[in-house]
C-alpha cells in the first residue's frame, strides 16, 4: 500500500514530461521519415522500397545508391504486370517505386494507384530520347519515367539443322503445324502472358494487336489452340535459363533481352557466336516499355523521385542495359553501353523494323473477351 504513491508519482512525472516539456515526439504521419530542414530541402528517408521485375537491374546499382546516399533499399520482385497490379490492388502498401509496362501504366493511372511526379525534381529526365517521351499511355510523363524498352519476337537455337536452312522470320514458326512438326520434338516454349501470346497470334493473322473485336480474338484463340499440342511449355519467368540456355527447347516466343541474355550466356570465345538468335517476325509485333513510377501510397515521395533521377543518370542507365540486354530509352547513356549491345539489331532494331511494331494499350471493355480467350487457351 505504501508503495502505491510512488508509482503514481512516477506516472505523473512521466506524463508531465510527455505533455509539458518533452520534445514533440512521435512519427510524423505524412513524410514517412523524410524530414524537411529549415532551408526547405528535404532529407532523404532512411529506407526506400523498390518493386521491380525479376532480374531487371544490376544489383550493384542498388548497393552503389545505398552507399552514396545512405538510403537502404528494400528490393522485391514480381513476374508479370498482372501480379504487380493484383498486389497493389489487394491493398499492399509500403512499395515506393514500381516498374509497370505501358498498358499497365494507363490502367494504374485510371485506378489512381500512381502518384504524380514533378519533372523539375528529375533533371536527368532530359537524358531521355524524344521517341520515348510523352508516350500515349502517360501523356506528358505526369506519372512515370521510361526505364527500359524492348520487343517481343522469336528466339531460336543456332545450329539446329532446320533453322540453318529456314531461319525463322515469321510468326508462322510459332503457329503453323506444318512448320511446327519439323522441330517440335526439340521443344517449343511460349510466353505465359495473356496479352503477349494473343498479340503474337493477332499479328500473324494480320489483325490489329489492340483489337477489340470478338471475331478477331476468337480467330487468334483458334490459331493458338491448333498450335498448342506442339508446344512444350508456357513460361515467361525463368525460360531464359531453365529452357533456352539449358537446351530444353529449340524455339521460344521471347522478349528481346532474354534472347540476347541466352546468346551471351552461351557465347563461345572460339566460334565467336552464341547459341541463341532472335528475330522480330516480318508481320510485326509488340514493342513495350517498362516505366519507373511512384505509388500513390508511398510516404517517401521525395526520396523516390531522387531514386528515379538516379536511374536516369547516363552511366546508371547504361549499366542497367549492360546487365539486362534490353534497350535503354536514355539517349545520353548510349556512349556508355557496351559496343556489342549497342550494335545488336535485336536489342536496338533498325528503323524499318521498329515501324512495324506496336505498343499495347488497355483494351477497355474488351478485357472480358481477352480473359475468356485466355481461359479457353489454358483450360
Amino acid at each position: 500500500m505504501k508503495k502505491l504513491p510512488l508509482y503514481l508519482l512516477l506516472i505523473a512525472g512521466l506524463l508531465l514530461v510527455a505533455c509539458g516539456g518533452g520534445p514533440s515526439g512521435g512519427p510524423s504521419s505524412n513524410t514517412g521519415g523524410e524530414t524537411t530542414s529549415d532551408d526547405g530541402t528535404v532529407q532523404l528517408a532512411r529506407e526506400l522500397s523498390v518493386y521491380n521485375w525479376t532480374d531487371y537491374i544490376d544489383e550493384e546499382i542498388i548497393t552503389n545508391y545505398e552507399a552514396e546516399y545512405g538510403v537502404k533499399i528494400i528490393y522485391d520482385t514480381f513476374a508479370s504486370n498482372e501480379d504487380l497490379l493484383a498486389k497493389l490492388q489487394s491493398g499492399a502498401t509500403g512499395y515506393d517505386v514500381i516498374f509497370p509496362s505501358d498498358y499497365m501504366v494507363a490502367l494504374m493511372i485510371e485506378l489512381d494507384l500512381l502518384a504524380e511526379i514533378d519533372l523539375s525534381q528529375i533533371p536527368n529526365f532530359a537524358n531521355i530520347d524524344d521517341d520515348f517521351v510523352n508516350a500515349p499511355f502517360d501523356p506528358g510523363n505526369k506519372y512515370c519515367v521510361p526505364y527500359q524498352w524492348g520487343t517481343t519476337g522469336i528466339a531460336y537455337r543456332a545450329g539446329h539443322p532446320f533453322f540453318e536452312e529456314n531461319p525463322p522470320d515469321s510468326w508462322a514458326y510459332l503457329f503453323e503445324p506444318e512448320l511446327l512438326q519439323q522441330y517440335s520434338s526439340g521443344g517449343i516454349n511460349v510466353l505465359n502472358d495473356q496479352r503477349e501470346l494473343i498479340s503474337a497470334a493477332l499479328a500473324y493473322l494480320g489483325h490489329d494487336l489492340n483489337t477489340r473485336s470478338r471475331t478477331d480474338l476468337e480467330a487468334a484463340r483458334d490459331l493458338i489452340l491448333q498450335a498448342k499440342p506442339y508446344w512444350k511449355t508456357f513460361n515467361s519467368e525463368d525460360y531464359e535459363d531453365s529452357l533456352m540456355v539449358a537446351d530444353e527447347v529449340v524455339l521460344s516466343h521471347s522478349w528481346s533481352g532474354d534472347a540476347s541474355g541466352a546468346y551471351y550466356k552461351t557465347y563461345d570465345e572460339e566460334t565467336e557466336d552464341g547459341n541463341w538468335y532472335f528475330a522480330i517476325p516480318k508481320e510485326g509485333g509488340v514493342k513495350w516499355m517498362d516505366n519507373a513510377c511512384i505509388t500513390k501510397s508511398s510516404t517517401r515521395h521525395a526520396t523516390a523521385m531522387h531514386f528515379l533521377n538516379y536511374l536516369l543518370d547516363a552511366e546508371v542507365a547504361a549499366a542497367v542495359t549492360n546487365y539486362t540486354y534490353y534497350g535503354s530509352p536514355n539517349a545520353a547513356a548510349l556512349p556508355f553501353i557496351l559496343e556489342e549491345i549497342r550494335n545488336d539489331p535485336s536489342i536496338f532494331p533498325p528503323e524499318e523494323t521498329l515501324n512495324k511494331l506496336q505498343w499495347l494499350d488497355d483494351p477497355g471493355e474488351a478485357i472480358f473477351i481477352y480473359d475468356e480467350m485466355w481461359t479457353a487457351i489454358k483450360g
Partner: protein
Amino acid sequence: MTIIRTTLPDEPRMTAGLNPMWQAAAYLSLLQAGVWGFLLFRWLTFGAIGWTAAGFETALAQGGGLAGYLVYGVLLVVDLLLGVGLLRNLPLMGRVGLGRALAGIILGLAYYGLMREFYGAAAFVALSGMLFFLIRRNIAGALAYPAGFWLAIFFVAPMLIVFIVSLGERTRQGTVTYPEFSLSNLELYFNDYVRFFSPIGGEYIYLRIFWRSFWIAIFNTMVCLAVGYPFAYWIARQPQKYRSTYIFLVMIPFWTNFLVRTYAWMLILRDSGLINNFWTITLHQQAVLLSDNSAFFAWLAEISSRKLPLLFNQPAVMLGLFYGYLPFMVLPLYSALEKMDWSLLEAAADLGANNFWRTVRVLIPLTMPGIVAGSIIVFIPSLGAYVTPDLMGGARVALLGNLLQQQFMTVRDWPFGSAIGFIMMAIMLAATLLYFRTLNRAA
C-alpha cells in the same frame, strides 16, 4: 485412556491471497503496462533515437502529436493501476478490470474502424478479451479463448470476406462492384456460381477443368493407397525398435521445401536430365556397339536415339503429385496398422479363412479409419494442386488450383475466383462428411 494425537499434515490453508485467475489478470495488465510504457518511451524519443515507425504509430500520428501521449499514457496508468490493484487485492478491482477489458475491446474495434490498421487492433482486442475472461474467473472461457480468437480472426473473418467478394461483379479495371440490392434480382449475386457450371462459347471450360482435376486427384489417391498400404503394413510388421526409424525416414523429405523437391524432379526428368542423359548417351552408345550382333540391341539403339518425353506432360504431373503426397498416405495408415491386434488375424486363420479373406474381412475393415483419413488427406490437396501442374506440367494444362491463381492474378476476377474457392470448399466438405459417416459406420 490416553489419546494419542497423531500430528496431521498441515492442512492446505485457504490462502487469503489472490485467486489464480486474478493473479494471471494482474500479470497480463502489468505486461500490457510494460508495452504501453515502452511505446510511450518510443514516442517520446522518436526524433532523437530514430525508430522506424510501426503501422499503428503512423496511424496514431495522424491524430496529431499529442495523441500518442494521451493514448499510451492513459493506458499505461490504467493498466499499471489495475495490475497493482489486483495483486494487492484492492476493492472494486473486479469492476475496474471488467471495465478496462470491455473498453479495450470497444476501443480496439473503433480504432480498426477509423484507422484500418489491422495488427495493432487485433493485438489490442485479443489481450483485452483475455483480460475479460480472467477477471470473470471463467476458466473454460479463458482456456478456449486463444484458439477461438485465432479461428475468428484468421478463419471465420477471411471466409466471410471471400464469400462477400464472391457475390460481387468484376469491373473492367479488375475492381469489385456489387449489384444494387433488391429482392427481385437476388440471382445476380450468384452469377459467378452459375458461370462455373455454364458453357462459355459452347464449351463447359470450367467443368472440364474441374473434371480433369477431380479424376487426377482420385487417381492420385488410388495410387498412393495402393503403394502406401503395403508399405505401411510392412513397417508395422517390423520389430518395434526399427519401426520409428522407418517412419522417421518417411518424414525426412519434409525437411526440404516442396518447391525445391519439385525442381529436383525437373532436373532428373528434363531432356538434358539424369534419366535422359543415361538413355541417350550411356545406354545408346553401348547399344550401338552391340547392335551388329543382335536384333534386340539394334532395336534398343534405335529407340534410345530419341529423348524420352518425361517432363511437361500429364504423367509428369501425376508423378509429382504421387511423390508429394505419398507420405501423407503412409502416416495415417501406419498409425492404424500399428494399433492392429494381429492375434485377430491368427484367429481368422484358425477359423479357416485363407490369406485373401483374412485381408478383406479382417485387416481392411479394422484399418478403415486409417484408409479413409489417408485418402482424404491426399485427395483434398491433390484437388487444389497448383505448383506441380505449373512446374512439372509446363503450365500447359490448367487444374483447379491454376484456374484459381489465374482468376486472382492474371485475370483479376476476384469474385469468380472466390466463387470457385467456395465451390471447391463445398466439395471438400462433402468429402470430409463422407469420412465421418464412414468412420461412424465402421464404429
